C-alpha cells in the first residue's frame, strides 16, 4: 500500500533532472517534452506534471522559451537551457550519478 507513494517520492526528486537532461540534448517544444518523458514508464510523467515544472524552471532562469514557426501547424513554444540551466544540469547529473552508484553498490553488497 505504501509502495506507490514511495515510488512517487523517488520520481519526484528526478523529474527536474529528466527535463534538464532532455533539453541538454537540444531545444524542444512542450508536447514533445511531455511525449518523450511519458515514453519512459518508470518516470510516469504527465502533462499536468511537466508544464508546471517548465513554468518553475522558466521562473528560476534555468530554461528559456521562444516561439518558432512550425512547418506543420501554428507556431510552437520551444524551450532550451540557459547557462544557469546547463550548470544545474551538470551538477544534478553528477549528484544523481553519485547517489545511483552508491545505492547500486550498497544494494549489490547486501543482496
Amino acid at each position, binding site marked *: 500500500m505504501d509502495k506507490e507513494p514511495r515510488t512517487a517520492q523517488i520520481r519526484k526528486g528526478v523529474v527536474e533532472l529528466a527535463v534538464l537532461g532532455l533539453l541538454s540534448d537540444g531545444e524542444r517544444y512542450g508536447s514533445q517534452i511531455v511525449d518523450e518523458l511519458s515514453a519512459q514508464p518508470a518516470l510516469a510523467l504527465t502533462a499536468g506534471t511537466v508544464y508546471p515544472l517548465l513554468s518553475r524552471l522558466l521562473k528560476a532562469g534555468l530554461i528559456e*522559451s521562444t516561439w518558432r514557426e512550425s512547418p506543420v501547424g501554428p507556431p510552437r513554444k520551444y524551450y532550451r537551457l540557459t547557462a544557469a540551466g546547463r550548470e544545474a544540469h551538470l551538477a544534478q547529473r553528477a549528484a544523481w550519478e553519485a547517489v545511483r552508484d552508491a545505492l547500486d553498490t550498497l544494494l549489490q553488497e547486501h543482496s
Partner: protein
Amino acid sequence: MITSLDHLTPAARAAVDGWMDQALGDVDADLRPALRDEYVTTLCERLVDDASPADVAAATADLRPELAGDPASRERLTGTILGMPYDLRRPTGARLSATLWNPAEERVLVPRAFGVGWDVNVGALAVKAGLIEPDAEDEPFASTPDGAFVRAATVPAALAAAVAAHYLVRGRALPDRLPRHWGIDGRPDAWTSKRAATGTDLTLAAAGLGLAALAARSRGGGAGRAGRMAAASGLAGSAAAMCVARSSERGGAWVPPLVVGSILGPVGVTLFGLARAGRDAERRRDLGR
C-alpha cells in the same frame, strides 16, 4: 529562487517540512498533494538555496497567516468543512486569476480562491477544448498588453449596460413583486419589491463596471489585473442573470444553469481573451509579426 526544496540547507528544509505538516494537517487528504505542490511552487519562488529558517518563516507568513497566530485562530480562514475546501482570506486579483486560469494544471475543479467549495479552472477547460496551449504564456497575463485589458472591459461594460437598459425600458412594465431567491429547481421561493430588486441589480452592475474601469486604467501586475477584470465580468454577469431570472414569475429548471453560465461565461471569455492577447504578444516578440 530555487527549483526544488532539496536545494535548501537542512535547517531551512526542516523548517519548511514542519510548516508543511502544520499547513496540510487540517486539509482533506485528497487535496493535500495538489495543495502541497502549490506551496512547493510558491516557496521555490520565494526562497534561495542559503535561506535560513527565519526566511522560511517570512516566506510562509502570508500563505497560511492563521498558522502564525495562536492555535485557537487556526482553521478560521482556510481548511475544509464537510469535505469541501474553504478559503476565507481576503481575496486578491492575483489569487483569483491563478485559480480560475491555470492552463498548466489539468484539474478542472480546484479549491475556491475565496469562499467554500470549488472553482472552475477555465484555463484547463480551454486546453481540453484545444483553444490554447498549456504553456501559451510563460507567466499568465504577464505579457498581456494594456490595450487587451481595455478591450476586455467591454465585456462587463456591455453586461452592465444591458442591465441598465433592461430596467430603463422594461422597468415600468415589470410587476411590483419580483423573485429574490430561487430553489434548486429554479422556482422562486422568496420575493422582494421591484424597487429593491432594481437597486440590487444596478448596484451589482455598477460594481462590475467600476471594477472593470479600475482594472483597465491600472498598469502592471498582469495576474492581479486579470483577476480584477474577471471579477468585474462575473459581477456584471450575475447582475444580468438576475435580471433575466427575475423576468419570469414561475422560473424553472433553466434558472440555475443560467446563473452559473452568466457568471462563468463572462469570466471565462475575459480570461481567455487576456491570455490569448498575452500569447500573441509573446509570439510577436519572438516571431516579429
